[in-house]
C-alpha cells in the first residue's frame, strides 16, 4: 500500500467521530470549579519594554521636578507650602517599621515576612529594585527569568517529583529530616547536584545542595522542570536548562523549609552578590 493512500485513509477515517462536546460535560466542569483550587505559580520576570527617547526625557524631567519639590521642603524646614505650618508635629516614618507580609509587591524595600505555609516566622531584608512573587518569592532587579535573572524562594517541602519532566510519574515518598531531604535532592537522577554540605542560616544549621538543570534537558510547553510537590497540588519548578538552584534546607519548628536561591549562567556577579546579601539577612524566629 502506498504511503499516500495510507495517509488519505487515516485522515478520512479520523474525520469520523464526535465533534461536539455535550453541554452536560461543561455543566459538570462548572459545578466542580469552586472546589478545584488553582495552583499557584512562579511567574517569570516581568519584562518592561525599553523606553523610547521621548519617554526617557519625560521621566528625567519628572524626576528633576520631584527632587526639586522634596528638596525645597527639606531646606525650608517645617514651613508648609501655601500657608502657616501646623502646630502638631508631623509623625516621622519609623526607622524600625514592622515587617510587612510579602504579598506580590511590585517594588520591595525593607524587611518582609514570608508566608508560603511556613509555620515559623521567617523574615528577609530586600533592597529597592527587587519585587515579590506571591508570598514566597523575592526576585532580583533583573527579574527571575533567564538569561540574567535570579530569585530566592521560600517554601516548606518534603517530596520531590520522581521525574522533573513528567508529572504523571508522581512524587517520591516524603522525607522527614533535613539530612534525608538533602540526600534525596543530591542523589536524584533527574538533575545534577552536589553532595550536601552544612550551612548555617541565622544560627540554624541545615544542609545546602547545589542543583543544576542539565543543559540538554528539553522542557515541555508548560515550561516546568518539576522539583517539589505535595498532596495539595502545590508545585515548585525550574524554568530553563542551565538554571542553578542553591537549595538550603533547614528545620523550622519541626517543618522542613527550603530557602532556595536560583540563578542562570548569565546572572551577573553583582546580582549574585546582592542575592547573597539578601540570603544573609534572613532571620528565623
Amino acid at each position: 500500500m502506498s504511503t499516500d493512500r495510507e495517509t488519505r485513509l487515516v485522515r478520512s477515517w479520523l474525520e469520523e467521530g464526535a465533534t461536539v462536546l455535550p453541554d452536560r460535560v461543561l455543566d459538570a466542569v462548572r459545578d466542580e470549579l469552586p472546589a478545584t483550587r488553582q495552583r499557584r505559580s512562579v511567574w517569570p520576570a516581568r519584562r518592561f519594554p525599553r523606553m523610547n527617547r521621548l519617554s526617557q526625557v519625560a521621566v528625567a524631567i519628572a524626576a528633576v521636578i520631584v527632587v526639586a519639590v522634596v528638596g525645597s521642603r527639606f531646606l525650608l524646614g517645617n514651613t508648609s507650602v501655601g500657608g502657616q505650618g501646623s502646630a502638631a508635629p508631623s509623625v516621622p516614618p519609623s526607622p524600625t517599621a514592622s515587617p510587612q507580609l510579602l504579598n506580590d509587591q511590585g517594588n520591595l524595600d525593607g524587611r518582609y515576612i514570608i508566608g508560603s505555609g511556613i509555620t515559623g516566622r521567617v523574615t528577609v531584608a530586600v533592597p529597592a529594585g527587587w519585587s515579590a512573587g506571591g508570598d514566597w518569592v523575592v526576585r532580583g532587579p533583573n527579574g527571575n527569568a533567564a538569561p540574567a535573572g535570579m530569585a530566592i524562594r521560600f517554601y516548606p517541602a518534603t517530596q520531590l517529583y520522581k521525574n522533573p519532566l513528567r508529572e504523571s510519574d508522581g512524587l517520591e515518598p516524603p522525607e522527614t529530616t533535613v539530612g534525608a531531604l538533602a540526600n534525596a535532592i543530591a542523589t536524584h537522577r533527574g538533575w545534577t547536584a552536589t553532595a550536601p554540605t552544612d550551612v548555617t542560616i541565622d544560627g540554624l544549621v541545615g544542609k545546602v545542595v547545589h542543583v543544576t538543570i542539565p543543559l540538554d534537558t528539553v522542557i515541555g510547553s508548560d515550561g516546568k522542570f518539576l522539583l517539589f510537590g505535595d498532596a495539595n497540588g502545590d508545585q515548585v519548578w525550574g524554568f530553563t536548562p542551565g538554571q542553578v538552584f542553591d537549595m538550603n534546607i533547614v528545620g523550622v519548628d519541626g517543618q522542613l523549609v527550603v530557602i532556595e536561591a536560583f540563578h542562570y549562567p548569565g546572572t551577573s556577579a553583582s546580582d549574585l552578590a546582592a542575592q547573597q546579601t539578601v540570603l544573609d539577612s534572613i532571620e528565623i524566629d
Partner: protein
Amino acid sequence: MDTELVTRAQRGDEEAFMSLAAAVGDRLHAVSHRILRDTDLAEDATQQALLAIWRDLPQLRDPARFDAWSYRLLVRACYAESRRNRQWAPNLRILPTDEMAGPDALSSVVDRDQLERGFRRLSIDHRAVVVLHHYLDMPLESVAEALGVPVGTVRSRLLHAMRGLRAALDADARPARQEAVR
C-alpha cells in the same frame, strides 16, 4: 485563542474560564474521542482535562501558547482515562450488508475496521501523535511542543504508528465479515 479570556481565567475568573471552556471544548473533545475511540471515556477525559486546565492555568507563562498547552493536558487526561478503564467498550459501527453496494464501499468498510483495530493496538502516545498531526494538521514541531517531547520522538512515534496502521490494513485482504470486536 482569546488571550484576554485566558489571562482573566488565570486570575481565577470562573466566568471567563467557562467562556474559554465553551470555546475550546468541542475541539478538545474531538481530539480525545479520536484518541480514546470511546464516547464515554472521551467525555470523561475532556472533563478532566478542562478541570486540569483551570487548575494549572496560573502556571501557563504565555497565554498565546494556550492551545498547545491544553492539548498536553488533554493527552494526559486521555492517559488517565485509558488507565482507569482498561475494559474497552468499542463503538465499532458495522454497516449493514445492503449498504455495501460495490467493491469500493466494501473496501472502505474493511479499511475502517482494520484501521480501528490497528489504532487500538497503539499506545496513547502514538495515537496522540497521529491525531494531532493527521486530524488537527499540526506540524510535527507543534506536536512536539504540545506533547513536551523532542521532534525526533514525535517523528519516530508517527513512523511507528503509521507502520502499525499499514500492517493492519495490509493484513486483511479477506472479504469483510461483520463481527463484533472485543
